[in-house]
């Protein structure tokens, strides 16, 4: 009792802003308490490493030679941008990202349309189409690495249908060892692995479209193709946008397929910025340089996300 009294008498003295903050904290204590564990994990394992990484990008920091870590300002950024490999990896990163996401998008949309039809064994078809999503990327990479070796199934199928007689590729073409076919092979692997996510999201969005829209269109004499472009696509546009944004961010970031299939080779033909940063850090021990690359990657991803979210906001407003 006496403590309440003394608190009450002490209260008027501190600034009212402080009192306001404390009152809000007490009033919302359950909300903050519930958030606390998640926020701690977020702060210590996501944000703090990010900040530390940014700090290291201004230092020369060698993993294998601990000791002095001189501050060099923006030197490592300048060195990176001047490196001809940077331009190469930059172009490769977009080639890999856009190529993968476009393929996943098209195949995912096709699969969603097919699985949304009134078909028999619908559940089984949906289940099968989803399998690649739960297959680990490392496993998919091992499988496709074998499929696309010179003695792999892809070559025997192409030879059987007479494709190799066109003279574009040899009958025992080693897809991953050729600078011009290595990246397409990785993109195909990524398409296989990633299209189910797109299909699931699109399918779920399609199922929220009221069916009388289609019936009305049919009565007006619209073909299925017409109603796809005039009803389906506009109705699921927000999902199309958000799913491809997620796809771009994930693909841009992902290293495991490239790590296993080519490790950036042959002759840097599949070297992306994240793969390069990883090699700089863990292959050569250049933690500072790798951190500078990571900051550049983060900047690029933030730019993509901002552009996308701006488009998304406009789409939402139009509806």
């Amino acid at each position, binding site marked *: 009792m006496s403590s309440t009294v003394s608190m009450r008498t002490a209260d008027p003295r501190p600034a009212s802003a402080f009192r306001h903050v404390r009152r809000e904290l007490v009033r919302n204590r359950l909300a903050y308490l519930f958030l606390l564990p*998640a926020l701690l994990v977020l702060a210590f394992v996501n944000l703090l490493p990010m900040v530390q990484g940014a700090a290291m990008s201004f230092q020369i920091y060698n993993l294998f030679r601990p000791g002095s870590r001189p501050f060099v300002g923006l030197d490592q950024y300048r060195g990176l941008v001047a490196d001809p490999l940077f331009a190469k990896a930059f172009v490769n990163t977009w080639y890999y990202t856009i190529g993968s996401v476009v393929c996943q998008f098209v195949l995912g949309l*096709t699969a969603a349309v097919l699985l949304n039809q009134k078909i028999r064994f619908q559940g089984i078809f949906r289940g099968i189409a989803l399998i690649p999503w739960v297959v*680990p990327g490392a496993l998919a990479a091992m499988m496709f690495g074998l499929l696309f070796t010179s003695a792999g199934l892809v070559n025997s199928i192409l030879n059987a249908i007479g494709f190799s007689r066109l003279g574009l590729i040899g009958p025992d073409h080693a897809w991953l060892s050729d600078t011009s076919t290595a990246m397409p092979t990785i993109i195909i692997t990524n398409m296989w692995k990633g299209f189910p996510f797109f299909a699931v999201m699109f399918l779920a969005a399609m199922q929220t479209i009221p069916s009388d829209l289609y019936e009305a269109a049919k009565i007006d004499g619209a073909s299925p193709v017409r109603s796809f472009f005039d009803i389906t696509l506009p109705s699921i546009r927000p999902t199309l946008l958000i799913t491809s944004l997620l796809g771009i961010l994930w693909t*841009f970031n992902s290293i495991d397929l490239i790590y296993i299939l080519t490790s950036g080779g042959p002759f840097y033909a599949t070297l992306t910025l994240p793969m390069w940063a990883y090699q700089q850090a863990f292959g050569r021990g250049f933690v500072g340089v790798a951190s500078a690359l990571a900051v550049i990657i983060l900047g690029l991803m933030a730019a993509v996300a901002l552009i996308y979210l701006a488009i998304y906001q406009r789409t939402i407003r139009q509806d």
Partner: protein
Amino acid sequence: MAAIRTQSLAQAKPTVQVRAPRFRFSWQQALTYALLALLVALVLVPFLWMLVGSFRPNYEHMQRQGSSLWIEHPTFENYQRLFAEYDFARYFLNSTFVALVTATFATSVSAFAGYSLARFRFPGHGLVGFLILTTQMLPTVAIIIPLFLWFKRFMLIDTYWALLIAYNAFAIPFCTWMLRGFFSSIPPELEEAAQVDGASQLGAFLKIVLPLSAPGLLATAIFSFILAWQEFLFAVTFTSRADLRTLTVGIASMRGKDVIDWGLLNAGVVVTTIPLAILFVLVQRYLVQGLTAGAIKG
């Protein structure tokens, strides 16, 4: 012909409901099934090829170079070699353990955080939501370098802790977002009624909301389980001891330096896929529900 007649009928009298006969042939249906067959082939043929190859002796792989779907002398020797040379049971246990702990911990932490974001309006609400979304786009490679340095300093390299910490950090933001969607879809009147009856807010959450969102919690747990089970880069960076390998690192460690050991690799892929396929059949329904419900409401 019949299809055309039904169509013109429907056009003439739109009020009459005309249902297409179930087994009548139509080009649209034929095309749908043909494309579906292609899709199924695209997904399954790589597995089938691995399955066949896993029963083919290696000398036959050399002759035919693994390119056909026929085996002259089927054998189990690849599987015997696989379990003799690689500790696949151990890899499997490692993956399962790490994924189970991640699923349990990440779902519990995310349930509280998701509920807080779904139900309470407090100063900083928007900021927390924004932070959770931004962690989704932090480059893996930007996190993995500082984490590696920390883990090295605290002697956590080559322990399960390194993997558990990293996986939880990656699972929690997405799980929080998913569960926020679920909790928002539960009408708040139920908790309000419980509170009128004398339950505390915490009690209402534990006794009313959590049981009601069991499907959502399950979906979130499955999602984080798969996330951890699939992970490769953290696992290969933070562990070097063979007895700590997860399945993904184990299978990747089978890549030969010069010669491809076809039989072994095929058997490895099959052994890794089978438990996954069983798990998938069991949980597929919840997974799809959870993934789409959380994301679309978010």
